[in-house]
């Protein structure tokens, strides 16, 4: 009852003054570590903009997409949402994300890293603003390098060096590996990332139709398969499933000599393994020369869902959040901001590396007609690498299935 009265008064007061609006912002930051920063960002905005007040709601990561979707379907969505960078074009195609070009987003383009900006561009229009991203690196254990006679100052730069170093780091007693130097599929770098790393792609130019069985992809998959065969498929899987959950970390425990992970992993290491002596370098490529797809990234975009009552105000806030808000975020959190200027104020080595790595980082949006292609590609990869299927044949089969999905969704 009290609440109702309060709301009623608030509504009356609101209508009496200027058109004061309250925006709902949904994002997945709820932990003790994240919350103070998002609160600070919101407070800063709210103080500056008495007529556009923002109310933040924490929605856990795994439920955010469904909750947002249901709210959009009910035509009662939040005004701004922080959501997976890889699926913005899907939501653009499905009329879930507002066209921000109509609200004047296009002139902001040069403030953001181009690889991130393009994740939210659909048919020439902009449907989201990049907020945070990440980039992947090769982490290597310097102490282990020393132990096996490798020079910790000379990490691998080519695939050949990577494999040679990894072989030296392997440690075996009898048939069982006590330590594995490196495996391409450990960590967060899958087949598609390796294909990009080798300068190829799994898709046609427009990222609409799959080209899974292209020569680069077949070659890359064969390379991973050969690597696995050398270690023994069973060993690789046993190792992988021992560390599959996230509750265990093979790099920290010294069971893996090298691993690929995001830039923010440095912070995890600082927290859980403060004494680990490691290096963080660019991911090796076949030639040693970096290219636009050497590393891969993910992250989050700011979107204004279709159906918001206050699109203009929502965009104004999203724009500020993606630039000024991102600056505050970058200073306090380990995420790399999508706005170029926002990262400048942070001078930590990891951040500088990420900044330098941006032009070698590909953020690949999920194709709007086959967003679930990843599971099919994973199956092809697993069937080849662990279960002896022919690389080309497995990729062709997956291609057929994804193509069917694309055709029926177009």
């Amino acid at each position, binding site marked *: 009852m009290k609440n109702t009265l309060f709301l009623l008064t608030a509504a009356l007061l609101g209508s009496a003054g200027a058109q004061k609006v309250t925006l709902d912002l949904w994002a997945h930051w709820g932990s003790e570590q994240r919350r103070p920063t998002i609160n600070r960002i919101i407070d800063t905005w709210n103080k500056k903009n008495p007529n556009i007040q923002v109310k933040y709601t924490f929605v856990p990561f795994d439920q955010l997409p469904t909750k947002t979707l249901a709210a959009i379907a009910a035509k009662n969505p939040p005004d701004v949402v922080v959501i997976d960078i890889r699926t913005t074009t899907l939501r653009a195609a499905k009329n879930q994300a507002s066209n921000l070009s109509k609200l004047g987003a296009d002139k902001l383009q040069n403030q953001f890293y181009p690889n991130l900006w393009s994740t939210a561009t659909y048919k020439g229009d902009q449907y989201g603003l990049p907020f945070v991203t990440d980039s992947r690196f090769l982490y290597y254990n310097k102490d282990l390098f020393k132990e096996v006679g490798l020079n910790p100052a000379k990490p691998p730069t080519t695939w050949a060096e990577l494999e040679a170093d990894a072989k030296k780091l392997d440690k075996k007693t009898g048939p069982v590996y006590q330590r594995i130097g490196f495996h391409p599929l450990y960590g967060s770098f899958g087949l598609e990332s390796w294909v990009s790393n080798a300068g190829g792609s799994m898709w046609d130019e427009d990222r609409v139709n799959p080209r899974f069985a292209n020569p680069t992809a077949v070659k890359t998959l064969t390379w991973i398969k050969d690597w696995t065969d050398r270690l023994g498929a069973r060993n690789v899987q046993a190792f992988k*499933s021992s560390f599959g959950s996230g509750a265990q970390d093979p790099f920290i425990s010294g069971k893996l000599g090298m691993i690929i992970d995001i830039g923010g992993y440095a912070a995890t290491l600082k927290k859980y393994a403060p004494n680990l002596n490691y290096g963080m370098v660019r991911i090796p490529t076949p030639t040693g020369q970096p290219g636009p797809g050497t590393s891969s990234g993910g992250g989050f975009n700011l979107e204004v869902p279709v159906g918001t009552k206050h699109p203009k105000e929502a965009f104004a806030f999203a724009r500020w959040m993606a630039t000024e808000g991102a600056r505050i975020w970058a200073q306090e959190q380990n995420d790399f901001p999508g706005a170029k200027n926002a990262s400048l104020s942070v001078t930590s080595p990891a951040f500088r590396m990420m900044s330098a790595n941006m032009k070698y980082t590909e953020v690949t949006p999920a194709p709007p007609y086959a967003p679930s292609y990843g599971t099919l590609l994973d199956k092809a990869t697993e069937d080849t690498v662990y279960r002896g299927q022919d690389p080309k044949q497995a990729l062709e089969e997956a291609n057929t299935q994804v193509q069917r999905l694309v055709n029926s969704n177009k």
Partner: protein
Amino acid sequence: MSRASSPPLPRRQSLNGRQREALWGYLFIAPWLIGFLCFVLGPMLFSLYASFTNYDITSRFDWVGVRNYVQLLTQDSRFWKALSNTAYYAVFAVPLGIATGLLIALLLNQEVRGQRLFRTIFFLPKVLTGVAVLLLWLWVFNPQVGLINTALYRLGVNENNLPLWFSDPAWSKPALIIMSMWAAAGGFMFYLAALKGVPRDLYESAQIDGASPWRQFWAVTVPLISPVIFFKLITGISGAMQFWSESLILTKGGPSDSTLFYGLYIWQTAFTDLRMGYASAMAWILLLITLAITGLQLWFSRRWVHYEGEVR
């Protein structure tokens, strides 16, 4: 709610006994019926209609006739894969789950010491839910240091023959089935509540009649708790057919689609690919399959389910 005063019945005098009973019947099921009509029927019919469209929730909703059904049954190999994975899971998980719960209930019914503590412990799996607990299972099934493989190794299984569980398409489903048995332990309460209804003098008379414990179990216990077993069978199958969230969190359908369950495929189709029309068609096919199995069960239940006070 146990007001003793009887609410006035309309035109009581003109109703005969049968009619009055029927009227009471409708009154008693009214809570369900009203809820069904208000909250359940609409969304169900909506999904039925959606299954004949290309519905994607937000941008299109066009009639496509039976195309989704035809595509599912004739072109979609993952549909059949998901169906067979689900059948595998249900065939093992449902009976094993019932056996687990029943075994614990029977043991607890033996009036052993520490009843309350044991009951609380076996209730634990019901309380322990959520993502955090699911991830604990990755420890249990960890091929190198997990509880199960450590035990198998001690029992003399060669290191190279130890199952890789969630990494091996042949062992991923058994792992999930073992997990489901653990969760089913909490179901002992259903049986225990029914067992407590078995009059003790029945056992005594059976004992005096010289029936072995085994025979007592089949002749006295099973008939009396058969209604609950039947309940667990129907709801267990229905639940197993829709099983999905564990596999999403633990295996994401892998390795090699070995844990791509029907529910998980629906989830992926509906919320990753946003093909809600297609997903709705899948859901209705599942409903029909489950309903057919239930119909058979109801038919067979006449032979083995014993109701002390059935009203036909």
